[in-house]
């Protein structure tokens, strides 16, 4: 069952890749009789991929005896699945294959990112042994995924409208967003490579309470732990030691990912001889801007109530049961509130101040950044009650 589950996830991953290619093909091909063959194949492959991933989810649920949403790998994978699910629904409303060309790579990236974390099926600690685990986590993830569609729509909008003829603040920030996506790919590549090479370097170091501890790196240490002493022979010695309050190993991974991202980005710029967004612009030149704007807005309109229900209301009910209080200002709770406040502001700006089009698109990008911050940084960097999710 466990093996079957992993295989299904792998199949889904490959199918999403194939579907992306078809959606890419759909842009250049002219429609015959109003039906776009490439897009049709693309959406069919996507749906099969989605079913495969659903199979992964169900088989893993059966194997574990609880919904596989209990650690960072499982949650992030589920988020990726919901992203594809949200895309499928939106596709049938608006029939835009372009959305697939941009959503699927992001979903692929999300799932690949998830796979870098421990993938074993873990039993549940007492705090997680509740039906609210399934209810709260799945609803919250679904809400975030629907909101993320607005990011994809916003990105398409920006790639289309940002003037690429001269450098500006807008071109810079758009490149920054793309660089961030590329760095995620960098993280995946670097982690996989060093893992395949079996790289390991153990350090003895002094933690912030002055106690000696051991830390194992799986990447060459550019930054070492506080007063770290290398214990594995023939490994790279760190260029600099970090203070004790900083988790040097995680920082090291971030630095490697950024370097890899920078390398990939530089390579792409060299090959393309223009900004990445400028290179993508021809792909989106035929897009109906009003429609993309509408998709972005609708995904917020649909996602916001789902997010509120899952990430705040269900969260509060469960917190009252498990932690004795419905709200405790735990970092994850606060960041869910921040996300909620942000999208509330988004909706008010749009409805009352008329922030449509490009402004709305930038806001969607910021909103996604907040969701990602909550998913990644709050789990891995800011330790709190939810930090078990980052193990």
């Amino acid at each position, binding site marked *: 069952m466990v093996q079957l589950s992993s295989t299904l996830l792998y199949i889904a991953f490959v199918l999403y890749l194939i579907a992306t290619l078809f959606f890419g093909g759909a842009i250049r091909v002219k429609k015959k009789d109003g039906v776009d063959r490439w897009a049709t194949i693309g959406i069919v492959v996507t749906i099969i991929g989605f079913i495969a991933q659903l199979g992964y989810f169900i088989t893993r649920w059966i194997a574990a005896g609880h919904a596989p949403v209990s650690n960072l790998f499982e949650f992030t994978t589920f988020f990726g699945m919901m992203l594809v699910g949200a895309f499928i629904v939106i596709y049938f409303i608006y029939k835009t294959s372009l959305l697939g060309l941009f959503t699927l790579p992001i979903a692929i990236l999300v799932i690949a990112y998830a796979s870098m974390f421990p993938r074993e*099926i873990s*039993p549940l*600690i*007492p705090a997680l*042994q509740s039906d609210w685990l399934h209810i709260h986590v799945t609803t919250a993830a679904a809400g975030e995924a629907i909101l993320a569609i607005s990011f994809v729509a916003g990105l398409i909008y920006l790639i289309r409208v940002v003037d690429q003829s001269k450098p500006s603040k807008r071109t810079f920030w758009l490149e920054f967003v793309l660089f961030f996506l590329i760095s995620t790919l960098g993280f995946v590549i670097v982690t996989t490579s060093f893992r395949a090479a079996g790289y390991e370097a153990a350090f003895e170091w002094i933690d912030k309470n002055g106690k000696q501890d051991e830390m194992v790196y799986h990447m060459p240490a550019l930054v070492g732990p506080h007063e770290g002493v290398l214990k594995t022979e023939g490994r790279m010695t760190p260029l600099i030691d970090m*203070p004790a309050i900083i988790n040097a190993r995680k920082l090291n991974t971030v630095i490697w990912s950024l370097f890899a991202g920078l390398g990939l980005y530089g390579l792409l710029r060299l090959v393309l001889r223009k900004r990445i967004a400028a290179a993508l612009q021809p792909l989106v030149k035929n897009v109906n801007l009003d429609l993309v704007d509408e998709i972005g807005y609708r995904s917020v309109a649909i996602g916001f109530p789902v997010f509120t229900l899952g990430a705040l209301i269900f969260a509060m009910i469960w917190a009252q*049961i498990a932690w004795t209080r419905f709200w405790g*200002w735990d970092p994850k709770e*606060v960041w869910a509130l921040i996300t909620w406040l942000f999208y509330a502001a988004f909706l008010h700006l749009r409805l009352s101040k008329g922030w449509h089009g490009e402004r709305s698109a930038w806001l969607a990008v910021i909103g996604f950044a907040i969701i990602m911050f909550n998913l990644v940084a709050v789990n891995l960097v*800011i330790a709190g009650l939810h930090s078990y999710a980052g193990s």
Partner: protein
Amino acid sequence: MEHVKCECGHVNPIGTVLCEACGKPLEEVPTLVDMRYEGSARRSQTYNKTIIDKIWNFFSSVKVGVWLIVITLIASAIGTIYPQQMYIPPTVSPAEYYEQQYGWLGKWYYTLGFHDLYSSWWYMLLIALIGVSLVICSLDRVVPLYRALNNQRVTRNEQFLQRQRLFSRAQATDYETALRHVVDKLTKRGYRIREENGNILAEKGRFSRWGPYVNHIGLIIFLIGAMLRFVPGMYVDENMWIREGEIKEIPGTKGKYFLENKKFIFEVYEKEKEKEAFQPAIDRVGSGMMAKNYQTDVVLYERVGPVVAGEEPKLKKIKSFSIRVNEPLKHDHYALYQVDFKLDELKNMSFHLTDKQTNKSFGTITIDLIQPEKEYDLGNGYKVQLLSYFPDFYFDENGNPNTRSKVPNNPAFVFKMFAPDRPKGEVSFTAIRQTIEPLGDNKYKMSFAGIETRNVSALTVRRDFTLWILGVGGAIFMIGLIQGMYWNHRRLWIRRIDEEVLIAAHTNKNWFGLKKELEGIFNDTPFVMPIDQADKRS
């Protein structure tokens, strides 16, 4: 109040942009009318003289509301940089802790009060201002909007129609038949039809216009519920440590309820006991390293009869229950939660009274470490007096034995041992792995015979009368949100003016959906599908 009379005869309040009844612009308007709030007269847009007007106008502005949200958002984010005071160890002083852990940044964090940000006066003020903004924003809009929607007439002014985003004008051919056909289709799609002199107003989903105001009411109720926590008596939040075998009054229940701890159970995931699928995960963290269950088996009692000082309470058993994480014991609005535990606290300690020379024992005493006896009689003239007891022993700064707490973490005793040949008794100070004979060499000693331990469980006692208010607020908020977001208010006007048909349509959101629906309605009729005039601009 002053009024403006429209040419259609309807009397509008001053400040109205579009006549409530016929929609005729009463002021200069751009090519497309702004349909937000139906062009009704909002107080904030009309009056700006007195101080009350100014305050009203300030809070009714969405811009101000959004700024309040953004400031709250940024402040909240700052509060997550370092742990809040409630998450740092309770024994350390926060002033030292933040500087020690996080250096000068931590020091500033503490100095600026960010360590307790969410209960700071200014954060509460921000939330309160958002609350005020919610109320005023809503009132400023909902009343005129209600008036406008309630007073709208079927026959709309020509200018109103042609300045709608979706609009068409065409020659009327076969008007009546076509109209019947369209009305038929509209009815099937759930539109309510009003007819007046051969003109049509088709409308659906008007209730979605109230969504924002409903959800704001929900939020206000929620905030009121949250505020009630400051009212004394609205909620109980107590902690109790209870040892196995102990019966204790439950704090916060005013002596009404008592709890007995039968047993505390702590379980971990062990490799050999868990199913195959979990093996790799258990291997990674180590067998026995991951908690599986924290559970206290308890019996809940209620006091019978009045409270009499100094008398043992009479208790009536109510129920037995196993309190686990995620499964609190609930009774009479109280809830008892499993929150902490301590394994193997010392319960009893036993000693033999022995002759140091011969090692012969003259009997064993067992000391209850919570309630020790004063004297232990061993018979035949042998007895032991307990002169002093230090449950959590240490030497204080003067070098005297003392105790840190009442918890038997490190018990120490001063014994006076009596025997037939030592009628005045010998004094011995006995601690773990330590014996001091302060008054010279003794014949007898208290030799360690054994210990008994038990587990201690920590429970949190809660009773919260604000919960249902928060629940109601939350439910209303969700209803309002769904009402406003998942439905939209669509209207279609068909008006015949002489030989022409004017068709206009409006929706408060999701224009794409409206256009698709209109295509379905007009495709097989002689009417011309309204055209999106917003497209022409770009």
